[in-house]
């Protein structure tokens, strides 16, 4: 099964993609979509190898996380808009901050970066190679510790759970 269908999740998503693109549920499209959903990951597999395909341990938690992030995004967007339109007289406190990370799973890191970057006001810069610290740039920084705590508890922890990080990683970072 794994040989022919490396990632059922991905294949499902691709099938959904196909059907959405074609806006049709006709048998022909289902068939074609299924074929593509199987073939495309197979084609891509050699290049995916270092990270493998993602496996979700707790999909529900993912949805909750996304919901939370959505609210955060809207909130931050409004904050940033305000700051752009009405700049503070004494200027913004834009800064780089470092956050030590425990998360190692590449997909987890990607998800984290997606959430952080999608949230206006913060930009993921990089993970410093030697100490595994995340560098963020914050548009208007009030309290560095608050940020560290928020990221670690509200984002990192759920993500670690979602991807159910195992001890024996296929590809240790």
């Amino acid at each position, binding site marked *: 099964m794994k040989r022919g269908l490396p990632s059922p999740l991905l294949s499902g998503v691709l099938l959904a993609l*196909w059907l959405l693109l074609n806006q049709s549920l006709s048998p022909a499209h289902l068939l074609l979509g299924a074929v593509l959903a199987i073939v495309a990951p197979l084609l891509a597999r050699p290049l995916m*190898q270092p990270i493998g395909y993602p496996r979700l341990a707790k999909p529900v938690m993912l949805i909750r996380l996304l919901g939370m992030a959505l609210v955060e995004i809207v909130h931050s967007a409004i904050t940033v808009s305000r700051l752009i339109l009405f700049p503070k007289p004494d200027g913004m406190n834009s800064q780089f901050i470092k956050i030590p990370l425990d998360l190692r799973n590449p997909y987890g890191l990607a998800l984290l970066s997606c959430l952080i970057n999608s949230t206006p006001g913060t930009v993921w810069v990089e*993970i410093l190679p030697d100490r595994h610290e995340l560098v963020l740039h914050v548009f208007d920084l009030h309290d560095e510790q608050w940020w560290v705590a928020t990221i670690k508890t509200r984002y990192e922890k759920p993500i670690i759970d979602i991807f159910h990080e195992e001890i024996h990683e296929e590809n240790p970072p």
Partner: protein
Amino acid sequence: MPTLLLILILLPFVGSAVAACMPANARNREAILASVVTLSGLLVAALLYSKVGNGEVVHYRATWLPAYGVDFALRMDGLAWVFVMLVLVIGLLVMLYARYYMSPKDPVPRFFSFLLAFMGAMLGVVLSGNLIQLVVFWELTSLTSFLLIGYWHHRIDARRGARMAFTVTATGGLCLLFGVLILGHIVGSYDLDAVLAAGDLVRAHPWYLAALIFIALGALTKSAQFPFHFWLPHAMAAPTPVSAYLHSATMVKAGVFLLIRLWPTLSGSQEWVWIIAGAGICTMLLGSFAAIFQHDMKGLLAYSTISHLGLITLLLGLGTPLAMVAAVFHTFNHAIFKASLFMAAGIIDHECGTRDMRILRGLYRQMPFTGTLAIVASAAMAGVPLLNGFLSKEMFFAETALVGGTEDWSMSVVAVMMGIFSVAYSLRFISVFFGKPTQVLPKMPHEPPRWMRFPVEILVLLCLVVGIAPGPSVEPTLKLAVASVLGEHTPAFSLQIWHGFNVPLLKSVIALLGGITFYVLLRKYFALATRDKTPLLNRFNGAQAYETTILRLGVAASWLVKWLGTQRLQPQMLLLMVALVGIPLLLVQPLPKFAKPVIAGSDALFALMWLIGCACAVTAAWQAKYHRLAALMLVGGTGIVTSLTFLWLSAPDLALTQLMVETVTTVLILLGLRWLPPRLTPRELNIQVSHRVWLRRSRDILVAVVGGLGMAALSYAVLTRPAPQGIGDFFLLRTLSEGGGSNAVNVLLVDFRGFDTMGEITVLAIVALTVYALLRRFRPAPESMAIPAQRANDVDPVARQAPAQQANNGYLLVSGVYLRFLLPFMIVVATYFFLRGHNLPGGGFVAGLIFAVAIIVQYMLAGTVWVESRFGLRAHLWIAYGLVIACLTGLGAFLFGYPFLTSHTARLHLPLLGEIHVPSAFFFDLGVFVAVVGTTMLILLALAHQSVRSHRLPQGMPTAAQTASAPETI
């Protein structure tokens, strides 16, 4: 009979070809071959005499250029026959002579081959039945004579002489062609018979003078007449047999022959007399005078030839029938004695190793026999009685007296002067036999071999026979020749030695005595033997003038080319752009009119969008020199606006394609940008930009503004006119019913105009192959070989990470997750765009580009080596298969009897899925898709591989072996 003519003319050419194939040292075989050919020719000529001797004209005709009324025509009348005999008889003697003259070390095949070819060409001139063909053979004689003069081409004089002779005579030939064309136009035919019959018509025609001048130019150059005579002395660099043959007996007589040939048509006018006789007089005097002061025996003979040719020309120019007779007669006499003299000079040269008359003395003792022959021939040249030269000169004197009448003696004076000079140079020539023998000769002279002297003996004998018994020996032939020219106007004449005491005889005596006196005086008081320059005439040096002219011509041409042209790109582009603006403005009358602009609601937004596009474009133009990256991004901005415009203005297919092309182009240029040199602004370099540069820039701005305005005006003119009832509607109406798809643009691409698409993917394939081939030999500039600055420092902690490391566990790890995860999505989306193309925006192009970009992203992420170790995309095979799929789809129609690319939609009824339409255009589009993927990948990857290659080799260039072993997979 007519076939004989053909044989006569073909024989020498066949002989020439055979001669060329013989071994280098086959002197005897060559000579025998040449003699056999010539003898056969003589035999044929003898056979032909049975007709020609009766005054008949023998014709041979074969169609050649019927459209222009030009046949391959041979025509033999009396004149032609006589000239044929001249060519063949002297030819035979020269062949024999050449056998002994040429050194055993000389590679003779070439010599005899050229000589025979020349003979053929000369026969062609004489026998041509139409004027165009005559010009052909005329130029052939120039060509062969060029090859013969240059036979000893390792010698500079031979090369110069050959070039000079060819340039002058070939130019004359061009003039002749022009003249003949005019003549043909006047007569309405190039046929010789017609032309000869049309004398009155020609002389009355307004173009007569032009025809005359150009034909005369042809004849005068060939016969070395003033002022074109200078080539002849330089042609003496040829081996002596050549001089004896070409430069005394035959080729130089071609000009004379032409004047004789066209005499009935062209002569008889005041212009004829002025031009022909004028040239004759000048040449005659000049040549004979200059001959006296030559030191080279052959040089003397050459000038004497010039002078005698002048004499003949003068006779022809006089335009009286009797002068004509004299001219023909002297032509033969001159051929006979001059050929023998050349041969004698050749013998002396051959025996003594020099022809310099300042050294040669007292040769009579060593070579009495040759000496006697030479002295007799010289006497003939000087016009001593009892020799042939005397007779024709006598006739000449008579004619000059006749022309001037009793009042005007000038002509007679000129004639006598020429006589005096010729006696003088004849004496100079024979002076080598007298006096005390010198000891400084390069070789000790002896009598030449028996058979080398034989031709001279024959010729001298002829001098005597003709001189003593002209009536029986030569008169019938002469009459035959003259009658064929003059026809009913042939004068009655008889050749006799003794005409009684009369004016011509007096002139002869004066000439003889005067000549001797003149010679003695010159020797005594003028240091004739050592003078370097010809008195009076040394100012005019034709050869120097020629060389200077040729040199100046080259210089002037270089100047002209420089002035009229350029080798730089920028002026050429400027010209192209100026032409783009200027030519329509100049040529098109009236220019299209413009309507008043109408501003509508959505225009403001549109204008705003194009404000962006234009600002980007103008800034890109401004930045492209020093800030390439910025310029590239700015162009990208214009690209986005362009895509959006397509989208907005009802061209979704274009928008999609433009978007993808934008992306690919950006990647492409970024791949290349690395190899360009850094460019610092003048400010950074502290350089002042000169005024000239600013001027140039202002000019270019002007051109750019005018060009831009022109394009804007054109666009506006088009946009404000209603569209014509074009072919566009047709496609819309049939795209669904007959094209099988609802997207008219796609159906156009794969069906209506599938042929275009075929060519288009071929262009892509070609470019990809070219790029690949080019980059295999790519050699980066030394300074761009180094690892980029970004990676050669310690500021960035990951600067030295290897590509695969970056992506798999380095700084690109997180980005890599996105980029890798996106790959299957991109593949599905590419498929989507591909499949829907026929009915909705999309299609093989866009899909191919999406697919290619999807893979390129992986390359950007993990580097060439890593990706290719896992995922071998053999791009060149994709290209091949893409083209083949598309082509075979088109060819499928052949099987059903339809033209290439005819499309058909198969309607399949499948269980569960229902009716599926599979248009053949689908497969065509598949070919397009595959080809586009292959092309894009090949181009981008060939570029990308350069980094890998050049980093592998930090020092030195990629070696050939490494270049050749670059993987085929990309």
